């Protein structure tokens, strides 16, 4: 086996004292970073936003880390100037070798500059939806609504369509409320408006919009559009729908089930619909009328005719 060409001569100058110093520096840096994190959390949690606090903690932690690393360099007899040149070359080599990593890094920088999302935002990227748990330089961490950790590379985030549900101060959501055809739609709209007005987070302005939207198969559909603070919209959405339903029912307006009116063509069909042993109430058969057109002037089918068994 060929002897390694790597030069480890700088390690010869390291003795136990140096090792102890390195250990103390690493442990000390970790301890100081932890201490500062706890202090910042204690003193600033109720004073600044969570996302700003997380960013501040991250900056402080990285600063302590860099400071500790710089303090370690003299032990290894590393000159800072040489290190910068070597680091420059090394970053070019690494960049070419790992383009996707570089892509993620650059995307991360652009995301930080553009700031389409912040920590805590309620977002959807591709098929991932949830709250932004962390924004790193290479990736974005999303906690889905099921509490699942999802790491999305920043390049994917940057090139995907991002939906941020809480970027604006307020957002609108809507329901479709079906009422029976024989109910008073005007009264139903009044009731729905009253329920919305009572809710603190259903915004006064922009005004909610409630109107008859569709004469559907089974119901008259009322469209309800409500604005809510972006941070509260889900709570309002889940809260109001049931309240609207309950209030409508309290006022005698039932939400209808799907229903269909079936007309039988003749008396036979009615009789055949009865079970065996059930006595049929004699119903006078309506006189069928047919238009006096040539094509339709054929006689109606004979109820007692052969061949009806298959119907």
């Amino acid at each position, binding site marked *: 086996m060929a002897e390694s060409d790597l030069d480890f001569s700088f390690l010869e100058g390291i003795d136990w004292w140096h090792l102890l110093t390195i250990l103390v520096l690493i442990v000390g840096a970790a301890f100081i970073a932890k201490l500062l994190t706890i202090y910042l959390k204690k003193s600033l949690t109720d004073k600044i936003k969570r996302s700003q606090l997380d960013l501040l903690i991250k900056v402080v932690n990285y600063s302590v880390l860099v400071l500790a690393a710089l303090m370690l360099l003299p032990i290894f007899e590393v000159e800072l100037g040489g290190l910068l040149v070597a680091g420059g070359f090394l970053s070019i080599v690494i960049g070419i070798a790992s383009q996707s990593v570089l892509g993620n890094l650059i995307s991360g920088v652009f995301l930080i500059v553009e700031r389409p999302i912040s920590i805590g935002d309620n977002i959807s990227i591709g098929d991932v939806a949830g709250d932004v748990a962390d924004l790193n330089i290479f990736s974005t961490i999303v906690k889905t609504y099921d509490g699942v950790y999802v790491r999305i590379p920043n390049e994917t985030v940057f090139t995907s369509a991002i939906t941020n549900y809480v970027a*604006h*101060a307020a957002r609108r959501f809507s329901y479709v409320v079906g009422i029976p055809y024989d109910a008073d739609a005007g009264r139903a709209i009044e009731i729905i408006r009253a329920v919305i007005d009572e809710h603190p*987070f259903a915004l*006064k302005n922009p005004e909610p919009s409630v109107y008859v939207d569709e004469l559907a198969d089974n119901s008259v559909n009322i469209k309800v559009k409500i604005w809510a603070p972006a941070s*509260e919209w889900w709570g309002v959405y889940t809260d109001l729908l049931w309240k609207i339903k309950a209030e409508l029912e309290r006022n005698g307006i039932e939400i209808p089930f799907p229903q269909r009116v079936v007309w039988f063509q003749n008396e036979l069909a009615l009789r055949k619909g009865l079970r065996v042993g059930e006595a049929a109430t004699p119903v006078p058969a309506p006189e069928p009328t047919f238009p006096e057109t040539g094509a339709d002037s054929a006689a109606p089918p004979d109820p007692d005719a052969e061949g009806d068994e298959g119907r």
Partner: protein
Amino acid sequence: MYGTHDLPFHYETDGFSLDFEHESGRYLYRRELNGSRKEHLLLSSGGRVIVNPVEPLNLPKSICHALLVEFDPLSIEPGARSTVYLTFPVEIGVFVAGRGNLEVLDIFSWNAPKYTLYGASDGGTIARYWKSPTYAAPPDLDPLREGLLALTISNTTRDWVELSRVVLESIGMKIYYDDALVSMQARMRLVSTMVAETSFRDRPFEEGQKKALELYLGRVLAGVERSRFLMDQGL
């Protein structure tokens, strides 16, 4: 009811009761208002309770930093300065004081909270909404329900300006109270027909009124708090 009281303390009126009951070395706080009820256990050997109006932006939970008071449209002539009297909703804070420290125990109100959006949905501000009549002189108000907002409007423009709302920043909101009146004084400086700046006066409306403990002052870093609101999305 407002003021500083020694524990135990009890207050009762129609449909409302507030009670600090001492039992076996601890205090049980109970508050009932129109059927809603709150209880809290205090592990304290004694102390004092402070009941005073607080910034009306806490119920059902704190989601914004602005109070929007809407009133009937009024117009003010160019260069004029005038004071109108409006009302604002009162929220009442119960604080416990012990060993030099204060803790908010409860916030309640007789008024149903409602929120609104000032401005557009993308650049606007969520604000607590309150509809007020406009008075030419200070009206008689129930200090447990409504406070008096003395709003001094200065029109610095050369045009008549029509306005129907004022937006006030919660930080820097100065509320004063006594047993008969809860008040705050605000300024509205109209800098154009569409833009105004609002701020507060830190002084009682009447002699002898006490300054209420502020909730929103302690929630910001010293030196970076905003105490003015720029109404740049319509008056």
